[in-house]
């Protein structure tokens, strides 16, 4: 089912540390349109708590978190 999600923008923040991945996501959220899905790649384990918390606070939608070898992928839909 996840395969159906159309990613409008992929942001590769692997290799950067807190707050790098969050700041990269903020930049993408600013640029994209409402409804777009952003894929964020982060190798910083801190992102696992920080990104979901931010998405919740900013009232966007966390569609999925996928764990890959050495990094995580966060799929975020811009809701407003």
């Amino acid at each position: 089912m996840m395969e159906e999600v159309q990613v409008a923008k992929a942001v590769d923040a692997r290799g950067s540390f807190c707050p790098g991945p969050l700041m990269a996501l903020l930049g993408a959220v600013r640029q994209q349109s409402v409804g777009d899905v952003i894929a964020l790649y982060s190798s910083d384990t801190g992102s696992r708590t920080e990104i979901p918390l931010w998405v919740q606070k900013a009232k966007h939608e966390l569609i999925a978190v996928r764990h890959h070898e050495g990094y995580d992928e966060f799929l975020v839909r811009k809701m407003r």
Partner: protein
Amino acid sequence: MKRVVILGGGVGGTIVANLLAKTSKDADITVVDKTGKHAYQPGFIYVAFDRQRPEKLFRDERNLLRRRVRLVVDEVVQVNTRAKAVYLKSGRFLAYDYLVIAGGARLAPEEVPGHEGAHHFYSPEAALRLREALAAFRGGRVVIAIGGIPYKCPPAPAESACLLDYLFSRRGIRDKVQIHYLSPLGRVFPLETVSPTVQRIFDQKGIQYTTFFNVERVDAEKKVVHSLEGESIPYDLLILIPPHHGAKFAQASGLTDAGGWIPTDKFTLEVKGHEGTVWAIGDITDIPISKAGATAHYEAKVVAENIAALVRGALPAARYDGKVMCFCDAGHHRGIAMRFDYTHPPVPPPLSLKWYLGKVLINRLYWQLVPKARA
């Protein structure tokens, strides 16, 4: 003779120049600086709080450099790494064998819509305007917000919250002032291990805080600051840390990433893609550590040592371990000190008179110790 050109006469550039002048007889050393004035930037915040005069925070760069270092007062327009040349605004150019980019960060307040309604203390002029606004302030809500990450001196906004508490307490109007700190991150302080300590200090002082507040725009008329997360906070006086980017010439030279920072090896401090000829230190790098004078200071020693090795035909062996050290003024004659590097995060420091005095001391001794590379 090997030609070493250093761009920027701030703390990092000055230390590299002076150390090389001391150790490398075969280096021909030139520092290029836009103004020829060296600023002690950590003092700007004290201008806002009326504890320092701006003219005390500047010295002639010439007087801080060893005699055999050439100082060129000019603006860098572009670096051409193929031609190994630096082009200057006056039309001159400088050829180099080794280049050190220490051009610092520039402020971009204009990137936040409505920024005209806000204050900051990242330049002497802005600090003086804030000083006036604080002198006229009789009560209400002071909001401290951060316009973008990264910015110089990560503790400075939290420090300003504590100094506001101290200022209004001394003036006997603390009960008429609300201080509200807006953090762009999910915690109050950028350094994770120190954040609980800062939160405790805020709680003790009655400083309110909101996390995940990334400034979107300021409505200067209605006096409200809006966040990307959808929150709106009213203010009577707004301190907004301006967004920062690397120096313009680096961008014009195609040396930077999207944020205007130079991709730099965090251990060797060589500019990626230009290993062995170009180094970057201080605020202008993309290394994910504090943009602070202490960072530039420790980085400068590594770069000076490695260039000295190359000049004498040896292999460069020094590596930067990410060492940073800083003192923060928490007001009421109390301070905290933090030391950390890439592998050792700062330990939560106790609030003490000792570290406040440490800060007072470094503010006084900076000119004798730091630029001349005696520390």
